[in-house]
């Protein structure tokens, strides 16, 4: 039950993690090659541009003639145009890699998540998974495209600049080369520290967002408790610590930048000193010196960026680890190879081999405990449910009423024993075969963004509009639709939030009706719903129970009474079993539950109108 902690990843570079990406990266081999070529040539040109200035000084200004100016200008222009075109080409390749690499990662991850068991989902928060699918894949793709591109860009620029400097004057070039490592070392020293502080700042920032969330959601409660002042003080403490950390991070940066600037200027000064002497001695041209100064000034920025990018690039390892970690999760419930052979898997079912399902369910000597540990919640449990029967499961909130349903639906498998459907162990058939025969209506109904029609169609994808409307009418969804401007095509909003809980419930009933399942599971809502909708829901339930093997996780007396068999759950165990009448006569726990529930429901009924 402990809160889900996100692991911190701060390990050193680990090659084996990166290797995992190779199969995906291999798909982009051609693109990478083009990216390197285009970016490389862009940088060669970029590094060569100051040479035009050198040429202008040497050949026109110092010689005092404008001869050859036109071809010079033409060549200069050609170089600029070529560079611009290359920028376009390189950008497009990189963008392509980034987007499609990200797409492939997201796709693989999403597809894998569809195969994982519900036990996995029970312990993993949705937010965590969502961050993996969105942020981490984006970061990986961004870095493996732009991060690599930038590194190629910087390396080629630096190398070609040095090459030119060596060609101009190797001794001066050596001076520059000697200072360069200092700047690189400074960057290597400062960058991780700056990154570290920035991470702290980001963490506090997300705390501030959390505090806003809480302060706004809890404002009414804060008011009734008169703790506004306390809450405001706490918030100010938080923004205060944000302020300190952010200023701290900025100060570190504020030191780093001038210090590296100073070093690079020192280089320029040395070049000026030595080069000036050489010019005075007429060993070197003034033009060469000024070109040299240009190079010496320009080379440090890419050097710094290189160190910086490298640090960020390595930091992506954590994202890769998280994503591959998720891809390594194995489903708890799997179909045996021979089952897949015959019935197909979740993605390519062989429906032609599926037997029809009648709906008889038998628990045979079933012992079960949840995979995340704890006691056995079922021990040597036996129960035979004839096809078409209705089983109600009652008990207080949190008593473990879902366990039987989870087992019957094969969301979990028995630890020991068997569950037979139509007389055969359900593990002999595919999960999809069973799931395609189940209709499931949840306590908090889940809808998808899209129209009402699309949501109902989820029950049977090839249903015609007429069939959808018929199914909807059977459970009074047409009454809901009539109130909406767009009718059947009304958008239900994200997770259906434009509709009331009752309306969402009705639509999820319609979805189940359309699916026409042999097994029907209803996890009944406790929330009070207006009388009219309540009536619709009652008749919808009647409609759905007809001729199907049904499990009701029920709260309402009216629903419970309809059951052929009632199982009473307390503290995770089944404590009583029987019909409504026999259980009342037994005067046990069910009797207790029932009498309390009864008093309440009647009061609501009278008042509610």
């Amino acid at each position, binding site marked *: 039950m402990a809160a889900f902690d996100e692991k911190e990843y701060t390990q050193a570079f680990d090659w084996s993690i990166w290797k995992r990406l190779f199969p995906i990266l291999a798909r982009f081999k051609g693109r990478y090659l083009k990216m390197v070529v285009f970016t490389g040539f862009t940088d060669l040109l970029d590094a060569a541009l100051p040479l035009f200035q050198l040429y202008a000084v040497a050949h026109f200004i110092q010689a005092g003639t404008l001869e050859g100016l036109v071809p010079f200008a033409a060549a200069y222009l050609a170089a600029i145009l070529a560079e611009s075109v290359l920028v*376009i080409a390189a950008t497009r390749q990189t963008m392509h890699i980034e987007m499609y690499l990200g797409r492939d990662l*997201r796709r693989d991850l999403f597809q894998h998540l569809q195969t994982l068991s519900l036990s996995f989902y029970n312990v993993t928060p949705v937010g965590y998974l969502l961050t993996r699918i969105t942020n981490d894949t984006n970061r990986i793709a961004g870095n493996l495209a732009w991060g690599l591109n930038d590194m190629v860009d910087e390396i080629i620029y630096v190398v070609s600049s040095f090459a030119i400097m060596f060609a101009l004057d190797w001794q001066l070039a050596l001076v520059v080369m000697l200072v360069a490592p200092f700047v690189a070392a400074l960057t290597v020293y400062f960058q991780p520290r700056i990154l570290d502080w920035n991470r702290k700042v980001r963490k506090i920032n997300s705390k501030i967002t959390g505090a806003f969330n809480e302060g706004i959601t809890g404002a009414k409660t804060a008011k009734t408790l008169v703790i506004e002042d306390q809450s405001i003080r706490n918030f100010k403490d938080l923004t205060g610590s944000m302020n300190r950390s952010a200023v701290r991070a900025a100060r570190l940066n504020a030191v780093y930048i001038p210090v590296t600037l100073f070093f690079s200027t020192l280089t320029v000064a040395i070049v000026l000193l030595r080069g000036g002497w050489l010019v005075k001695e007429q060993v070197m041209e003034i033009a060469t010196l000024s070109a040299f100064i240009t190079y010496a000034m320009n080379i440090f920025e890419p050097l710094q960026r290189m160190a910086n990018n490298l640090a960020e690039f390595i930091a992506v390892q954590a994202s890769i680890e998280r994503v591959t970690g998720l891809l390594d999760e194995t489903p708890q419930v799997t179909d045996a190879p021979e089952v897949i052979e015959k019935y197909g898997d979740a993605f390519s079912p062989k429906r032609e081999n599926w037997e029809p399902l009648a709906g008889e369910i038998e628990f045979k000597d079933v012992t079960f405990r949840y995979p995340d540990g704890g006691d056995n919640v079922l021990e040597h449990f036996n129960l035979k449910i004839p096809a078409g029967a209705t089983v109600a499961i009652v008990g207080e909130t949190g008593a473990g009423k879902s366990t039987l349903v989870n087992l019957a639906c094969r969301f979990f498998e028995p630890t020991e024993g068997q569950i037979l459907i139509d007389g055969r162990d359900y593990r002999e058939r595919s999960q999809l075969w069973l799931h395609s025969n189940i209709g499931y209506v949840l306590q908090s109904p889940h809808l998808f963004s899209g129209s009402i029609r699309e949501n109902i169609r989820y029950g049977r994808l090839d249903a015609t509009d007429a069939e959808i409307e018929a199914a909807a009418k059977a459970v009074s969804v047409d009454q809901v639709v009539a109130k909406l401007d767009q009718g059947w095509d009304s958008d239900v909003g994200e997770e259906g939030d434009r509709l009331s809980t009752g309306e969402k419930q009705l639509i999820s009933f319609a979805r189940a009706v359309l699916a026409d399942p042999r097994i029907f599971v209803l996890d009944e809502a406790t929330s009070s719903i207006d009388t009219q909708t309540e009536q619709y829901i009652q008749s919808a339930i009647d409609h759905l129970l007809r001729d199907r093997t049904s499990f009701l996780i029920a709260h309402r007396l009216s629903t419970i009474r309809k059951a052929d068999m009632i199982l009473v759950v307390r503290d995770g165990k089944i404590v009583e079993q029987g019909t409504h009448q026999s259980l009342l006569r037994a005067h046990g726990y069910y009797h207790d539950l029932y009498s309390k529930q009864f008093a309440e429901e009647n009061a609501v009924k009278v008042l509610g109108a």
Partner: protein
Amino acid sequence: MESQMKLTPKEKTAMILDQLRGNWGYFAGALILAWMNTACNAVIPQVISVTVDSVLGSKEPGLPGFLQALLPLDRLRADPWAALWMAAGAVVLIAAVRGVCIFGMRVNMAKGSEGFVKKLRDSLYGHIQRLSFQWHTAHATGDIIQRCTSDVEVIRTFVCNQMVEVLRTGFLIVLYTGIMLVMNWRLALIPLAFIPVTGLASGVFYGKISARFQVADEAEGELTTCAQENLTGVRVVRAFGRERFEIDRFAQKNDRFSALWVELGKVLSVYWASGVLLVCLQIMAVVVAGSMAAVNGDITLGDFQAFVIYNSTMAWPVRSLGRVLSEMSKAGVSMDRVGQILRAEEEPDHPEAKSVKLSGDIVFDRVTFGYEGQEVLRDVSFTIPWGSTFAVLGGTGSGKSTLVHLLDRLYDLEEGQGRVTIGGVDIRDISREDLRRQVGLVLQEPFLFSQTIRENIAATRPDASDEELRKCAEIACVDEAIADLPQGYETVVGERGVTLSGGQKQRVAIARMLLQNAPVMVFDDSLSAVDAETDTKIRAALKERMSQATVILISHRVTTLMQADRILVLDKGRVADMGTHAELIARPGIYKEIYDIQMSSDDRALVEKGGEA
């Protein structure tokens, strides 16, 4: 709705200036240091120019008189080493000054902008805490949170990055073009001509792209929603066997999102390339025209080189200025959204409001009340004797919660709407805080903060002892449940911690209220998610250990209601009936109806038979 109103530019400026108060110095300091840095940077090309022309060459330097006097030119010419040392020393010295400027600028900037954003956040948070109950009821939480986070971020960028960037770059452009104009005005016409072209092209282009950015962002939102719905609805997906369908749906959105970005990338690549093209063209134009001017003797070699440096230093910032200006135009919307919150009125309390120790009967005297044009209560009068237990029965929309909200002054009655008095004092004359401290209220859907259970229960009295804490938890029947949690009272609950069941939440909220030690305690249907058995236990414990308190119960449970000293039956905002349990079942009415249904039911008979057996 008032929150949709737009602010005039004057109001927006006033708002920003108000939030800037206290941090002006930092911003001014940062700006001045930034300008000094730019100015220092402008000196370096001059050093190079003088060195080239007057030390290595023989031209008289065109420096201002006092500088010229400082420069021992003859000696320098005689001793070129000294001259070079001097030039190199000047470069290093300038770098040192620049280093100090940059350091100071960055530190000031950080202090200024962090101070600004802290002030803005603090005022928002504080203001929101003090806004009325009604305001909180009328506004969607998600939207308010968005305004406090994303919109604040936009405003921060606007003030701390974009404004400063514009002022900095503006100065750079003015200074550099000024220098170039002085050096050679004809040559300076080239960069002058490029400024509007580059800036405008960048701004307009960027404006165009941002529409596409929005489309791509929306596609990303859809993709995220799709994944989120799939993950939260995993049971539905599995139960219907819709894995294939989900994968296809996700793939389609994934493809669309990626394709949109690749398309956007094509436009962006042109945008970037056009930047490279324009900037390089500007440099090239100066190199070519400068060469011609130098050959014609219009400028010296040193000036040519200095000119080239000024020109290329200026070219990129002009381009980024265009983008920044185009982005800045978006900040107005965010200022509207934040300004609307800051302008909403806080809960008023009239100045003579007293601090009173509550005691005496609670009287609702001809109370008529409604909000948003809908009448909720009509002419409601009743008295709750001090120290008694009072119960309210009513259906949805009967106005029963409003009664409680009025008593806690979450809403105030206006003139002519009747009055609520405690011990004869109109509650509007009692200060809000004082009143609320003495009226403990558990809301229907109580909110627990993302803190430990201890901190939650001790919210009103952080210094409460463990013993007191546990006593309250025991009365609320939640002590055992807490002990079962992994870290007991230190377990963090809420969004970042363990999720409690509805009943557990309600009981923790009751414990929290009990610790408040209020003489008046109100339970607004706050045991609805607790099973009936526990409900009875809690009320018994309350009666035993807090017998002095005035208790107001709102409930659907007859078993709960019947134990009150008095029961008020509320129907559609009017008093339908009032009396003791015995009185109420002796006459026809809603209360008796409920009771009768129970008595006449076959099932009830069966239950009772079972009970006798």
